[in-house]
């Protein structure tokens, strides 16, 4: 049964995010002073096979190896069975 994984990669809190800063200032300029911080990351959808346990372990590996650079980024993912 194929799975659909949603992978979120975000800049670490300790890392400056110039894109997030620029968007945050733009939101302030547009009249949203309540915005305190914006962080911009990546969202990926990965479709994969195998059982749930294997898919989770493999995704963990993929994130560490390629999808995120753990020096500057955090990652998390959700995994769902695909509905046909």
């Amino acid at each position: 049964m194929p799975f659909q994984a949603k992978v979120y990669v975000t800049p670490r809190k300790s890392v400056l995010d110039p894109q997030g800063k620029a968007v945050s200032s733009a939101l302030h300029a547009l009249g949203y002073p309540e915005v305190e911080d914006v962080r911009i990351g990546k969202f990926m959808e990965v479709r994969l096979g195998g059982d749930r346990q294997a898919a989770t372990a493999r995704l963990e590996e993929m994130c560490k190896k390629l999808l995120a650079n753990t020096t500057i980024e955090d990652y998390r993912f959700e995994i769902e069975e695909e509905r046909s």
Partner: protein
Amino acid sequence: MKITVVVFPGSNCDHDAYHAFKHILGIPTRFVWHKETNLENADAVILPGGFAHGDYLRCGAIARFSPIMREVEAFAKKGGPVLGICNGFQILIEAGLLPGALLRNRSLNFICRDTYLRAEAADTPFTTRLKAGQVIRVPIAHGEGNYFADPETLKRLNGEGRVAFRYVDPNGRLNDEWNFNGSAEAIAGVLSEGRNIMGLMPHPERAVEETVGGRDGRLILGSLIDKFTRRAA
């Protein structure tokens, strides 16, 4: 002596590097495609600038898994000199051969202009023609060259003399206005623990002839060949 320039799909400074070594410095130079698994007895390896694999996902993230990179890592582990320029620096970082990360420029703009660099270490295979503290003019051309490392890593790099170059003003002084990409501690180039791998954001291969705006880049590329050609520094 032989120089090998690795070519990735999307490399665009490979011919500049080839020209600098082959025609300006007179060193036998060849290209090796990233899918090859043999560096062909290279004495030094260049990872050139460009946009390998379109810089998709992150700069250098996909290129680091190219088959040739296993050879580059083995070559570097044996002490072979490896110079990664711009995108090549990004690839070396993604491969874990150099510490830190290269973030989007502080301004979010692609910056293409001359910069002034101060040599911070003269005792490396890339700086024998330079004196510590010497200032040279070399261009940058990148969107992601904002060097980042955690405080502990920065401390270690400084302590071990592994910061090779810093961005400075024309007088050789640290000046935030001349640190265009916003790099931590104005770092432009770093060395590996063994000092045989250097990553450098600026482009020495684009500064080898007066007609294209200077020849200070020869001091870096020339240093690399001295050990093999026994030419006076």
